């Protein structure tokens, strides 16, 4: 997608800069952009390493298994047709927990495994099933407990209270996720 959007953004900006007489600013921005990219990367560097280290500990302990039992009532509501013994049940659970904890690089491979298992039981191989739909909608909605990247960026910009946004983010996340879940439940009956 970026292969189309990226050149489009730059070319229309170039044309607009000529027409609006902002050529000098446009020219300067090409150089300052590089410095800004370096700044943001340095900002993220420490935080990314810290959480990757912590999440590695999570992956090596029994915390994930412990949390799996906690979310089983939610799983029952989201995926009523799945049984606990099903292979995809376990894969979906672990994917959701990895998302909650913000282990993105572990969540995606697990999620793809769950998709593969669900696809094996799918009678129409080119059409998405209800369970898959719910699973994908959950993954497109945010589940992350600690928004580490946002906090890192806020801190680098000199925020007085970088983590002030955590509870509001939880509230918004819950409302948005419920909207996605309700939409999926309703639409899956009609389409």
């Amino acid at each position, binding site marked *: 997608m970026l292969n189309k959007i990226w050149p489009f953004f730059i070319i229309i900006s170039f044309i607009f800069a000529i027409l609006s007489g902002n050529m000098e600013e446009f020219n300067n921005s090409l150089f300052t952009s590089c410095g800004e990219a370096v700044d943001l990367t340095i900002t993220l560097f420490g935080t990314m390493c810290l959480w990757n280290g912590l999440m590695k500990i999570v992956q090596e302990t029994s915390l994930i298994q412990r949390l799996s039992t906690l979310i089983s009532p939610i799983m029952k509501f989201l995926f009523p047709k799945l049984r606990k013994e099903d292979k995809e049940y376990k894969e979906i659970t672990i994917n959701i927990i990895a998302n909650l904890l913000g282990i993105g690089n572990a969540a995606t491979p697990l999620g793809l495994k769950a998709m593969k298992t669900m696809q094996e039981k799918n009678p129409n191989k080119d059409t998405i099933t209800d369970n898959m739909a719910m699973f994908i909608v959950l993954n497109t909605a945010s589940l992350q407990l600690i928004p580490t990247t946002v906090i890192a960026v806020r801190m680098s910009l000199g925020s007085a209270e970088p983590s002030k946004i955590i509870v509001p983010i939880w509230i*918004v996340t819950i409302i948005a996720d419920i909207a996605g879940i309700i939409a999926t439940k309703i639409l899956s009956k009609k389409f």
Partner: protein
Amino acid sequence: MTNVMNYISTMAVPTVIGIIIIYGLIDKKNIFDIFVDGAGEGMSIVIKIFPTLLGIFLAIGALKSSGILEAITKNIAFITKLIGFPSEVVPLALLRPISGSGSLVVATEIMKTYGVDSKIGLIVSTIMGSTETTFYTIAVYTSSVGIKKIRFVLAAALIADLVGMITSAVIWNIIG
């Protein structure tokens, strides 16, 4: 109410780190070795995303400096005002479902311009923390198993995004 929320927000990160470390101790793991190992993997992730961030900064910088972004924002301001959504946040709302690093760059720019602790800065932070890269996620998950008919999935996911963005603005209008 706001004080309680602030307190819980401040407690969240230390609590999560505490639980992780205690669990590591209970399970008798060499947690420092594991931590260092994981942190090292984090380094390569950051190095890998740098070229993407550079490219996006270039494009966003171009849009901003040419004046086109401001022109678009001004022209749609009357629509967003109707639902109480600040027009300054619109560029982020449009890019968020499409590109993760792109929206991170735009969010950083908006916070820099209007102040990280201003209402706009807080709304932007909340959107970033409560939504995901919808299009990318759907593409990766469906294409990995060769699914072509995704039925209503894009609509349902975008409904969740839209609700999340509007709620982000509403919540800071209430408590902010």
